[in-house]
């Protein structure tokens, strides 16, 4: 079980608990604003972009190559950017804070 906190662009803070699947699925299933996951979670649309809180970035690690490609030229990208469909929920992510990028 991992508790994951989302902060939306409206500054709404939503903390959700997940046991499996991706962080994008958790957000979509709970209607977190700004995380659409249009492609279903296959790193093809970048509609699930989040900024990991800097102090939590070690827990998620950085993006793989294709994810990095998708993010590199996005105007909202910063050094803590991840596509949440590529973040698998596990105990290791417990307590992390993610800011929705749009």
């Amino acid at each position: 079980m991992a508790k994951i906190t989302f902060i939306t662009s409206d500054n709404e803070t939503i903390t959700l608990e997940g046991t499996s699947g991706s962080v994008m699925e958790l957000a979509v299933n709970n209607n977190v604003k700004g995380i659409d996951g249009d492609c279903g979670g296959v790193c093809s649309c970048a509609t699930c972009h989040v900024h990991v809180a800097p102090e939590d970035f070690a827990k998620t690690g950085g993006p793989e190559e294709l994810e990095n490609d998708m993010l590199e030229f996005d105007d909202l990208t910063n050094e803590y950017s991840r596509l949440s469909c590529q973040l698998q929920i596990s105990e290791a992510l417990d307590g992390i804070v993610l800011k929705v990028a749009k």
Partner: protein
Amino acid sequence: MLETANQICVVIGASHAGVNFAFNLRKEGWQGAIILYDVDPNTPYHRPPLSKSYIVNGDLNSNLLKPLESYQKENITLELGKKVTSINRALKTISIENETDQKYDKLVIATGAIALIPQINGIKEATNLFAMRTAADAIAIKNAIDTSSEKRVVIIGGGYIGLETAASLKKIGAKVIVLERESRVLERVTAPLMSEYFMDLHQENGVKILIKKNVISIKNEGSFNTVFCDDNTYFEADIVIVGVGIRVNAELAKNADLEIENGIKVNQFAQTNDKNIYAIGDCTLHYNPHYDKFIRLESVQNAVDQSKVAAASICGKNLIYDTIPWFWSDQYDVKLQMVGLSNGYNEVLLRKEATENTSFSVWYFKNEELLAVDAINNGKAYVLGTRFIKGKQKINKSKLVDVSIPMKPTSFL
């Protein structure tokens, strides 16, 4: 704010477009009832994984568009396994098989398409013959493979569905032959060099692809079928999969006298010629401002974007449909991302990244205008292609193909 508390919005079709629409409508502030009908009894699911990951991992539950609780939470009523038989525009009702009529204030048609089953001699008598469109199709294919000892599969049609299915079935141990009628696979949607690339990729992975194979009959021989082509060749198959295209589900709209033209014709708000009826997704013929023409698209992007536009319009906001189409396909460990529409191209440029042997992109031009980009394992080309097409950016073609110049937003000016 519109007074919608006592109104009813009915959606026919609970796949990607219909379900996204329902949740978007709630988000836009609709307070009345939202009722989703679908003839498919399964909790609405993502379709793209059916031909990709589903065949391999077999878990439909990880594939739902939304968990069941979400529908309750947003007060969206699911009426699954129910067939809508007609629309009465004068009374503003729909008829449902074995049920009483349902009234609507706003109606959204999201009926998509069904797999086309060609009229081939013996096709009705064939055993283990399937399309690949619905969860039931995918489950049936997986069961047939799992219980077949020989696992000989013939796929009729070398389009994306056929090729994705071939790759997935190969992964679970099937012997796969793809029969393509044209002289190359993906003939309708991509350039010859992409066709060649995919043909080689499949052959390297042990899938046999045969071109110029026009299937003319299928003969059932008990537990297997023999598939005959017009060049006197034939192939034995324990399982036959048909992937030769789709037919738009437009009968309801047609019978209700809505404007039809290779799909249900809608304006930039996804509205039909009846102001209370919208249509979204694969079944629509819609105007795309970027390409300045009416098009019909079979894609998740179109389903999602039209669902947003229709929901906004019904709630009194003026959002217009203005998206560059995008698509993707996963086969083996190759990710293909496509953006734009290549129809009408007169020049194709290939950019093969110098540092990697698996990453390249194909750029389609009509004279100086960039129309579309196909990116293989190359998210950068996909993202930049999207931006260039959207901004109608002029591309310096000689810089584009010069791989010593790194791919950056300003590299090809």
